[in-house]
C-alpha cells in the first residue's frame, strides 16, 4: 500500500504526540472523565456507587456552604490578583536595570516561588501567632492594635492572602521581566531624545507594550488563586468557621474527610469549568493582543 505524503506526515505527527498523549490521558483526561462520571453518583468509597443523576449539582447549587466557598475563593482572588500583578510589575521594572548584583535580587525575589508551600505555611503559622508572632510585633511597633489573624474568620483570609502574595509575586515579576527585556531599547532611546520623563516612558512605552504579558500574568494569577490549597490546609483547614474555606479545600474536605466522592466531584467539575473559561480567554485573546512586532 502506498501512502501519500500527507498521510505519511499525519501518521508521523500522531506518533510524535503519542507519548505525551498517553501521559496526559492517564493523569489528566481520564481522571477528568471519571470525575464527571462520579459527580453523577452517590458514593462514599466504601459502599457501591449509586447513580443519582444531577442530584449532586442541585444540592450543591442550593448549598450555603458551597456559595460561601465560591465567595471565599473570589475574595481570595480579589485580594491576591491585583496586588501580585502590580507589585510584580513594579519589582520587574526595578530589576530590569543594569545594577551591580541585580541577579542576586532576582534570585531573592524568586525564592518564595520555589520554596515548598507546606514548609513556608508552617513558618507563617508561627509568624501569625497572635501573642508571640512577628506580624503582631510589627503592628505593635506602629502602635497598632494586635490582630487575631488565624483565629478570626475574616482576618484569617487576610493572612492567607498575604501568604499567597508572598508566594506568587516573584513568579509574576520574572514573567514581567522577560516581557520587559523583549521591548526594544531604541523606543526608550527615542523617547529620551524627545525629552520624555521616566514616568512618561513607563506609561507610554512599557505598559502598552507589556499588555500581552500583563494579560497572561493576570489570567495565570487568577487561575492560581482559584486553585490555592496548600497554605489553607496547613494554616487554617478552611476555618475558622469556614472563613478560608476556598473551593479546592471545600472539595477536598467533602471527598476525603466526609467521604462524599460524588458531591466533591461535582464541586471539582464546577471549579474546572471556571478555570477552563479563563484558560480559553487566555488562548483566544492572549495571542492577539501583542502590540509590537
Amino acid at each position: 500500500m502506498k501512502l501519500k505524503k500527507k498521510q505519511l506526515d499525519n501518521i508521523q505527527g500522531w506518533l510524535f504526540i503519542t507519548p505525551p498523549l498517553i501521559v496526559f490521558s492517564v493523569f489528566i483526561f481520564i481522571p477528568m472523565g471519571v470525575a464527571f462520571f462520579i459527580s453523577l453518583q452517590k458514593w462514599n468509597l466504601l459502599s457501591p456507587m449509586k447513580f443519582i443523576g444531577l442530584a449532586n449539582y442541585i444540592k450543591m447549587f442550593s448549598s450555603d456552604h458551597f456559595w460561601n466557598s465560591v465567595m471565599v475563593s473570589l475574595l481570595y482572588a480579589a485580594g491576591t490578583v491585583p496586588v501580585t500583578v502590580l507589585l510584580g510589575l513594579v519589582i520587574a521594572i526595578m530589576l530590569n536595570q543594569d545594577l551591580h548584583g541585580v541577579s542576586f535580587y532576582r534570585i531573592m525575589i524568586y525564592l518564595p516561588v520555589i520554596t515548598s508551600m507546606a514548609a513556608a505555611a508552617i513558618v507563617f503559622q508561627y509568624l501569625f501567632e497572635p501573642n508571640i508572632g512577628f506580624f503582631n510585633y510589627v503592628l505593635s511597633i506602629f502602635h497598632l492594635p494586635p490582630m487575631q489573624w488565624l483565629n478570626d474568620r475574616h482576618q484569617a483570609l487576610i493572612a492567607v492572602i498575604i501568604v499567597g502574595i508572598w508566594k506568587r509575586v516573584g513568579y509574576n515579576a520574572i514573567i514581567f521581566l522577560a516581557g520587559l527585556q523583549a521591548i526594544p531599547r531604541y523606543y526608550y532611546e527615542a523617547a529620551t531624545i524627545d525629552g520624555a520623563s521616566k514616568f512618561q516612558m513607563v506609561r507610554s512605552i512599557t505598559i502598552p507594550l507589556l499588555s500581552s504579558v500583563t494579560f497572561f500574568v493576570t489570567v495565570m494569577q487568577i487561575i492560581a488563586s482559584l486553585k490555592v490549597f496548600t497554605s489553607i490546609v496547613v494554616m487554617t483547614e478552611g476555618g475558622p468557621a469556614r472563613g478560608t474555606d476556598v473551593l479546592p479545600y471545600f472539595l477536598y474536605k467533602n471527598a476525603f474527610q466526609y467521604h462524599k466522592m460524588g458531591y466533591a466531584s461535582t464541586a471539582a467539575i464546577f471549579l474546572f469549568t471556571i478555570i477552563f473559561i479563563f484558560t480559553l480567554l487566555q488562548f483566544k485573546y492572549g495571542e492577539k493582543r501583542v502590540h509590537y512586532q
Partner: protein
Amino acid sequence: MKRATAILMVFMIFMGTLVWGAGNTEEGVQITELTEPVTIQIWYSLGAKYSAPLEVIIDKFNSMQDMITVEGVYQGGYATTQEKLLAAYVAGEPPVLAQLEQSLVGAFVANDALIPLDSFIKADKEFNVKDFNKYITQGATYNKKLYGLPINVSTPVLYLNRDLFRKAGLDPDQYPTTWDEAYDIAKKISDLGSDIYGLRIYNSGWIIDSLFHQFGGKIFNKDNTKCLINSKEIKDAMAFWKKMVDDGIAIYQGGKDGSTMDASGVVGMVMRSTGSIAWFKDNVTFDWGVAPFTLGKTKAVSLGGGNVYMIKKTSPEQQFAAWEFLQYLTNTENQVYWSTNTGYMVSRKSAKESSKIQEILKNDPRYSVTYDQLKDAFARPTVEAWPEIEDLIQEAMTRIILEGASVDILDQTASDIDELL
C-alpha cells in the same frame, strides 16, 4: 476527537461496573500457625516523640522471632491516617493493623471493614481480655463486639500554670472542681494582665463533647439517630464559655493549634490530653500541674486517643501475624514502657499495678489524674458522618463565641446534622 470520547465512555462504563466493597466475607481465626514468614504493616498516627517508643516495641518484636516482620508506618495525624486507610482499603491493599482515633472509626464500622477480635481472644487461651480496664475498652466496643485493643488511650485533663496561680495569689494545689470555681480562678489569673488568660478553650471534638456532658447534654440520642446539640444543656454550656471569653478571662482559639500559646506561659489553665504530659515536659519552662477536668454538674470526660484495629481485605496469614503482634504490643511490659514514655494510660490492670507504674504514680501525681477520672469516662459516639458533624458544631461554636451569634443558631445546626444521620 470522537474516538477519544468513545474510549472515555468505555472506560467510564468499565469504572461503573466495578463494584467495590465485595471483599472477603470470612472473618476471625482462619489459621492456627504460620508456615512461611510474613510481613505486616501497622499504620500509626502519632509522630515526633510518640513514634519512638512504638518503633522500639516493633523492633523488639521483630528480633525475638523470625516468622513475622512488622513494619511501622507513620501516616500523619489522626485524620490523615483515617483518610489514607480508607483509600488503601478501597484500593484493596490495606495494612492489617491501624491505629484509629476514637471518633474516626464510624465509617469503618458502618461499612464492615474491621475484623472483630472476639474469635481471636476466644481461641487464644493465654490472652486474658479481662485484664483490660473496661472503661478503656468501651471505646473500641461496638455492637457488643470488641474491635480494637487500646494503645494510646487518654482523657482530657486540666493543665495548670502553677507560676501564674502563685502570681495571682492563688494556691496552685487548690485546683477548680466546678465550672464556677474555674471561672473565679481564671478571673483572678486574667487580672494579671491584658495578655494573660485564665483559661484557653478551643473546639476540638472530644473537649467540647466533655463540656457538653458536664453540663448534662449529649450530642446524639441513644441510637445516634437524632442530634441534640440544640438542647438547653448544650446551649447553656456554650453560653458559659462565651461568657468567659466575653469577660476577657478565657481565650478561645478558633484556629488550629494552641500549643505555641500554651508553651508561652500566658495561659493559666488549659485542657489537653493526658498524653500531652510528655509534650509539657519537653516544651514548657514554667511550673505546671495537672488537675481533673471533671468540672461539671455531671462528672464526665470523653475517652480520647486511639486503639489499634484489624482491617479486612487482608490474608489469614497477615491476620494471624497481626494478632500475634497486637498481643505483644498490648502486653503488660510494653504498656508500661509506652506509658512511661508518653503519659498515655496503661489499659491493663496488671500494668497499672506493676511496680514501675505504681512508683511513677506515687512520685509524680500528675500521671495519676487521668486514672482517677477514668471512672467518669464515656466513649465517643461512633457516627459515620462524624468528621462533617464535628465541623458543623465547631463552626457554630466559633460563630457563637467569637462573632456574637445567638446560641439559638444551634437549632439550625441540629437540623443540618439530622440530615447527615
